[in-house]
């Protein structure tokens, strides 16, 4: 326990020492926000399994090592990022190396009027007042240690703002790269997205490692959707098998706004994805989709929290897990319905496929309902591939591992098909086939 406290102190000391060098260090409210967050982190420390939200996820190995917070100047060969780009997708592209913006690798096309898109350090330095809605609209949850750690550093990331009734002409691709060769590094990007009334955008976040060193990504994204705004959010997490990936995405939705999320988690030794959506306006709608794969000794943990605060809102969640090797998958979905939120409609489902004898799935779909005129349901299953289906395929001459691979792909494909952005869906499917081919003889079939 003392070692953990020492580590927290070490992070706090480093935060304090680099605080004056951070962008907008001279702006009082930003400086206060950072120091309050640092105090929160010092008080909270790393979460332990005694906390209900971390019951199935142990961050013990993460907190035993120190990941440097200081920004480093790393130049990357543009060729190196090519594998991570979507060739068929015309998009704005912001690239971050260890959460620091890399302008040389980024391409921002001409933006329609009413659209502000820049890296967060620029916003902090030039127009920090624009960021206030993200830090004042709602008290930052002081009970979340990793968010506090991210806020305490608050240095770079993305700022996207759409004026009312504008549309971001092309999808926005945010590419986060981790490099850890010189020093084990902690990347802490912050992405702030605000869509004005009736505006629309598509944002794709992807996280990759450039080498095989262990890195720690602690990402934090915040989304504010005003009335009737629409955001489609994609996230791909494909960091190397030594890395730690902790991420939270918080969404505030006004009336009749629409939020759609697609998550694909493939990498990292420990991955945790938190997604919280507040349906603050009548008729708001959200649809959350997630697919997580684990093999080896990977641990992947998906938390969702949907709060129905006003009447007539709608939420749909579907998360699927495929677990192989000694992997462990965790799903914890919470649906909260406020007493005022009559006529709420909430659906939640989680399905897990266990492919090996040592894989484990823990699932906990929760409903917390305080209004009576609601329709809420959840379902969860854990199991292996259906013997009858396997038999059917084998009776038609498929080798066993190919049959297994095909059925597994079928299980996952459902979620890829839900993605409206076809070039992304296709590229992700190829990736999936490649992963399944390593353990199953799928390649020969396709």
């Amino acid at each position, binding site marked *: 326990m003392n070692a953990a406290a020492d580590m927290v102190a070490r992070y706090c000391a480093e935060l304090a020492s680099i605080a004056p060098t951070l962008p907008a260090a001279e702006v009082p409210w930003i400086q206060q926000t950072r120091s309050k967050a640092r105090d929160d982190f010092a008080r909270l420390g790393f979460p332990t399994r005694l906390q209900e939200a971390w019951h199935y996820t142990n961050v013990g190995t993460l907190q035993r090592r120190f990941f440097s917070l200081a920004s480093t100047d790393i130049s990357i060969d543009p060729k190196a990022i090519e594998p991570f780009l979507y060739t068929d997708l015309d998009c704005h592209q912001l690239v971050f190396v260890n959460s620091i913006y890399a302008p040389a690798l980024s391409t921002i096309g001409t933006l329609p009027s009413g659209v502000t898109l820049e890296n967060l350090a620029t916003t902090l330095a030039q127009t920090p007042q624009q960021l206030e809605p993200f830090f004042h609209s709602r008290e930052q949850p002081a009970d979340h240690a990793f968010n506090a750690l991210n806020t305490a550093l608050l240095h770079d990331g993305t700022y996207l703002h759409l004026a009312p009734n504008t549309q971001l002409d092309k999808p926005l691709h945010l590419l986060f790269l981790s490099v850890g060769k010189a020093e084990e590094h902690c990347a802490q990007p912050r992405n702030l997205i605000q869509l004005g009334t009736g505006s629309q955008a598509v944002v794709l976040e992807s996280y990759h490692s450039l080498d095989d060193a262990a890195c720690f990504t602690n990402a934090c994204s915040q989304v504010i959707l005003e009335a009737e705004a629409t955001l489609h959010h994609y996230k791909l997490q494909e960091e190397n098998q030594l890395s730690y990936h902790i991420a939270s995405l918080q969404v505030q939705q006004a009336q009749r706004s629409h939020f759609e999320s697609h998550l694909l988690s493939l990498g990292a030794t420990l991955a945790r994805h938190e997604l919280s959506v507040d349906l603050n306006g009548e008729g708001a709608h959200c649809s959350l989709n997630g697919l997580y794969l684990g093999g080896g000794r990977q641990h992947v943990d998906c938390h969702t929290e949907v709060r129905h605060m006003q009447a007539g809102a709608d939420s749909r969640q579907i998360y699927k897990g495929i677990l192989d090797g000694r992997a462990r998958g965790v799903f914890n979905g919470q649906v909260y319905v406020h007493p005022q939120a009559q006529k709420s409609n909430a659906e939640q489902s989680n399905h897990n496929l266990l492919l090996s004898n040592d894989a484990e799935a823990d699932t*906990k779909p929760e*409903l917390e309902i*305080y209004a*009576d005129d609601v329709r*809420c349901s959840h379902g969860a299953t854990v199991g292996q591939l259906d013997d009858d289906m396997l038999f059917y395929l084998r009776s038609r001459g498929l080798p066993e591992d190919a049959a297994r691979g095909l059925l597994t792909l079928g299980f996952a494909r459902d979620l890829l098909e839900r993605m409206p952005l076809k070039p992304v869906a296709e590229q992700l499917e190829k990736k999936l086939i490649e992963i399944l081919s390593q353990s199953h003889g799928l390649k020969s079939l396709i």
Partner: protein
Amino acid sequence: MPSSTEELQSHLRKDYEHGFTTDVESDTLPPGLDEDVIRHISRMKHEPDFLLEWRLEAYRHWLTQREPNWAKLNIAPIDYQAISYYSAPKTQADGPKSLDEVDPKLLETYEKLGIPLEERAALAGVAVDAVFDSVSVATTFKDKLAKEGIIFCPFSEAVQEHPELIKRYLGSVVPTTDNYFASLNSAVFTDGSFVYIPKGVRCPMELSTYFRINAANTGQFERTLIIAEAGSYVSYLEGCTAPQRDENQLHAAVVELVAMEDAEIKYSTVQNWYPGDENGVGGIYNFVTKRGDCRGDNSKISWTQVETGSAITWKYPSCLLRGDNSIGEFHSIAVTNHHQQADTGTKMVHLGKNTRSTIVSKGISAGQAQNIYRGLVHMGKNASSARNHTRCDSLLMGDRCGAHTYPYMEVKNPSARVEHEATTSRIGEDQLFYCQQRGISEEDAVSMIVNGFCKEVFRELPMEFAVEAQNLLALSLEGSVG
């Protein structure tokens, strides 16, 4: 339905019907708890040394524990030193030999509850081991059971007559260190029921115990132990009602079931303790640890509960499915009204191969009550081909109540299959309209729909209980139109 809220409120205000206190002198220890109190309880009950040591060990462990706070319950602080831990009806000193010797006032209590002991016992063929406060006062049908070799007696009697069984099984399912309330119970339990079914015997009748809390300020600490030897079968019924009272009463019972190879235990509960008045004042605190151990292969334990009473219910009847092919079942109806809070559910721990479990939970919440299902399904590494199906449905009546579901599923074996589904809704206006259109009053329609909602669970109850349970449900929810 604009008028329904008012109507609903008037019906929901209905007072507790079974509220009265029998005036019986009690031999009660002064409030407080320390090792001397435990020694005193043990001495009063002429217990062997091993049991006293066991109690003291539990007490010492209890001192190191903290009250659990993970449940979604709002509990007023409990002063454990303000509770008296022993109370026996005075007439018990000589011990009644038959019904005639029982204090007529006690019998009167049962009359008021609509449980004419002898009549019921004779007509229904039910052996009643009635527990009045902490000491049993009447046991029937003992001879008939004795012929089969079945032991069905008050726990304290079993301690005297079958210490070897107690020593062997007590705490083997719920150890003294299990949880805060189980440790407290282990330290201070006064009485309860003991059932032993010998090998291959099918118990010829439903065994039944009526618990009743009486003397004011007396925590009730029951201890029940049921052992079903290989190939045996027993169905055990437990039902409760309690007098109206202003102060919260603590009830921390422990129930242990042991099922050996091919044995089956069916445990049914109807719980209707005083739930507090409509403002949430008073009512029983019900913190119960119930656990069944399917120790042998092909054994089966099923829990059926109808929970309508208590201000606070904290109860998770569980099954440890250790034997291969063993079966665990949990059927529950939990009704909360006014300010009642219930955090209840089950744990199915699958350890053996081909183990199966079924969970059916129906929660009904009205007034300002909170009704919580919390359940764990654990599939261990060796639980190959194990199966679980869970269904929990919640019905909300009124706009200020809550219904919550917290299922935990942990699966460590790929061939195990776990399925969970849950819904939350209210009584549909179209359903009501359909019934009313056919000349059925709104009240009858609600009762019909609620009964239909709970049917799956009622079906699991033994006949005698099913009737009582349906009446209870109607009583608790009369006129609650959502």
